[in-house]
């Protein structure tokens, strides 16, 4: 396999006035292509008064753009067998198109329309606003989403981009006008610091030439600055309990602030999280809470390392009569990962599992594409995924423990419970 045909090697193909163009070969035999635009347009850039606007703009960009109203756009994509998705995060917003490989250039044209010329038709704004309002209600009343929301609010201070889930509140959503949407779009969708990632059959030069043609209106302005306040430890053992009567299951979250993806200890912290709860089936939380304890259907952990920082969180869903037994179990596993060296056999098993997983991530274009978007967003070297196995193999048990003490710090952990907490007759 030549290097440019290896999906693990991602090419930085060119820079067009602040738009970095990245190309990745599709996995062998794949018949599809994926294209993603990532811009500095996450909810970290929105004001509290207009909370939710970043997600509204992101969704509306995929709804109707350029010559296409919402029905014409849906049909345009259906007719070529393509789909569109969007993802808003604290720091960024993404629009992704997926479709037949030989349609990649036509899809790039549609993607450029979505990014540069969303229509913000009034009826679309109202429809998306109604959906956002419903999501915000659910976030408050569903145990899982409520627990996630409360955890972030407990960890991060006011004004921090990671404090919110980006959905917004009824009052802030109601306040958003079309002019606000257009302004947010103008400031965040055609400025520097954006990425275009294309996975498919085209050569890098063809991708750059096509991008130059379709994104020629892209501005050369500097990337907007994200304000990131300092996160202070929340104090000793912060606990939040939200009693939601009538629900069947209690959702538990324990977490705290963590390191950025670019931190030197990230690979070791990644392994620490995999040992704790990130690696499916093998992790300590799954083994202790589900397999040995039989107390929950799901028990896991995640390390969300972003550009300017991050957070870690352990998750479990358990019954109203069982959460009191689950909380100390999760707490003790978090303390153990940060204080004791992981035994070599266990570390090796987790490490080889993470390394062995790479071929599975190359099964389809869309899975391989996620690797490329991740690499490019964090500005990692082209061969990052090729060298990833060697990076992981070089990490010692001691390094994992030390990284865990920083990235999964039990002293700074917040506990949140949401669900039917009180026993009722």
């Amino acid at each position, binding site marked *: 396999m030549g290097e440019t045909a290896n999906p693990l090697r991602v090419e930085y193909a060119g820079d067009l006035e602040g738009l970095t163009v990245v190309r990745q070969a599709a996995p062998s035999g794949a018949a599809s292509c994926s294209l993603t635009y990532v811009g500095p347009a996450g909810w970290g850039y929105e004001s509290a008064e207009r909370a939710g606007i970043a997600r509204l703009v992101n969704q509306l960009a995929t709804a109707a753009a350029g010559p296409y109203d919402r029905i014409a756009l849906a049909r345009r994509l259906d007719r070529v067998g393509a789909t569109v998705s969007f993802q808003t995060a604290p720091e960024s917003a993404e629009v992704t198109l997926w479709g037949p490989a030989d349609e990649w250039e036509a899809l790039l044209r549609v993607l450029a329309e979505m990014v540069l010329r969303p229509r913000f038709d009034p009826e679309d704004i109202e429809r998306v606003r109604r959906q956002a309002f419903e999501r915000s*209600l659910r976030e408050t009343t569903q145990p899982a989403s409520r627990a996630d929301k409360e955890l972030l609010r407990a960890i991060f201070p006011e004004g921090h981009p990671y404090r919110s889930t980006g959905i917004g509140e*009824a009052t802030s959503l109601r306040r958003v006008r079309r002019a606000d949407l257009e302004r947010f779009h103008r400031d965040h969708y055609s400025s520097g610091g954006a990425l275009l990632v294309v996975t498919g059959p085209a050569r890098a030069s063809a991708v750059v030439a096509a991008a130059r043609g379709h994104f020629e209106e892209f501005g050369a302005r500097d990337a907007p600055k994200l304000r990131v306040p300092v996160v202070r430890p929340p104090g000793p053992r912060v606990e939040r309990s939200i009693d939601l009567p009538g629900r069947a299951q209690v959702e538990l979250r324990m977490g705290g602030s963590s390191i950025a993806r670019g931190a030197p200890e990230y690979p070791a912290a990644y392994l620490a999280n995999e040992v704790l709860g990130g690696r499916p*089936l093998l992790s300590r939380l799954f083994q202790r809470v589900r397999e040995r304890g039989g107390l929950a259907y799901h028990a896991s952990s995640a390390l969300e390392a972003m550009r300017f920082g991050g957070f870690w969180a352990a998750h479990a869903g*358990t019954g109203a009569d069982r959460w009191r037994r689950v909380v100390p179990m999760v707490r003790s596993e978090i303390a153990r990962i940060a204080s004791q060296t992981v035994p070599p056999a266990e570390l090796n098993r987790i490490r080889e599992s993470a390394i062995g997983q790479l071929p*599975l991530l190359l099964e389809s274009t*869309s899975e391989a594409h996620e690797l490329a978007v991740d690499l490019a967003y964090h500005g990692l070297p082209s061969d990052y995924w090729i060298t990833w196995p060697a990076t992981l193999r070089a990490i010692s048990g001691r390094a994992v423990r030390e990284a865990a003490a920083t990235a999964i710090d039990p002293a700074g952990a917040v506990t949140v419970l949401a669900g039917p907490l009180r026993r009722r007759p």
Partner: protein
Amino acid sequence: MVRPGVARPAFVRFRLPNGLRVLLAPQPESPSASVWVWYRVGSKNEWPGVTGASHWVEHMLFEGSPRYGKGAIDRAVVSVGGELNAFTDTDFTAYFTTVPREHLDVPLDIESDRMTRALITDEEVGRERTVIHSEREGNENWPEFRVEEELYQLAFRVHPYRWDALGRRSDIESLTPAQLREYYQRFYGPRNAVLVVSGGFDPRPVARDIRRRFSRLPAAGDDVAVPDVEPEARGERRAELSGPGTTPYLQIGWRAPALDDPATPATLLLDTILGGEARLFSPSSGWGRAGEHPSARLYRALVDPGLAVRATSEWRPRVYPGLFTIQAQAARGVSLDRLEEAIHRLLTRFARTGPTTTEMEDVRAKIRHGAALAYEGATRTGFRLGYFSVLRSPEFEDELYRALLAVRPREIAERARATFRPEARVVVRYTPTDEVPDG
């Protein structure tokens, strides 16, 4: 250009003397290999008192067999970077493992060990009981689950489609290890299974390996037909639920044909035109528009004018006649009466006029592209080959594909008239009890 037809890779098939059907689909360039075992057992094979047994047995097949003690299956697969899971449906139970191609022997060894010899010990059954309770409770947190469970319970009085594959709470409480072992021994075995291997491997040595490992298993496993026939509904059935949440929600169901009914292709297109989802021929699973289909009829009739925040339809082909459903979540300030009336008006009009020429062109394009792109990767290949095989045969996909493209608009309108009869309607409405903040 779209290649015409279903883009399924070439495959070989054979049957072992003990009845096991085997399909091998080599994809030489694939870096991974996927092993799927499909059993023709699901909640349709259960009866009151043992509801949820199929799903519980699915859990127990990860908890120990002669060569793999508790946790050993997970360790063997995940340690080499593989992933594994299983799911239980009304009509089947499927187990899959995808591994880097050089480790294909690992899932083959596991599947041969647990196909007839899973241990299902008293101790592990006891421990798993709370895990299954917890899985059910997680679902119960969602009003949609509560409504759907009620809908099927109301629609079916005799047929086992009446209960969810998770089983009733009371049965999860009372099922015994002996009952689970008996259930497993009756339904699991080569005679009732399809083994699919897809991805990067050489088929000849793998076929030899499969014969060596699986031929020695006893010819066990019954494929039992469900004797209960659901009688014709003689009037509308309706239920009103209330509970936590903030958004009023409803589901409406109508009796719909079984998989082998000649009306299947027109019913599938009816679902796609109303709800937007191409189901079996969706071009991308898990990478789509997340249920948003702005050009679909329900979306245009309910979401666009602000009556609903979400609306879709669903018909999944099943072995026995199931339900065609419509689900909608009311927008704020819209009553469920008004929403239901709008759905009724839409369906009446559609049954009279049928789909437009544009809708027919759109839906055919979706099917063509879906068929061309659906086989990317070893895991999806194993899923599709196994799914169509366990229901009928791999060729059923081709038959269905051709039949879908041949359906005329008139047939879809006829199907709508035959399906959306008021006397065959089942309606479940959910009124939330949480206070909604001013907004």
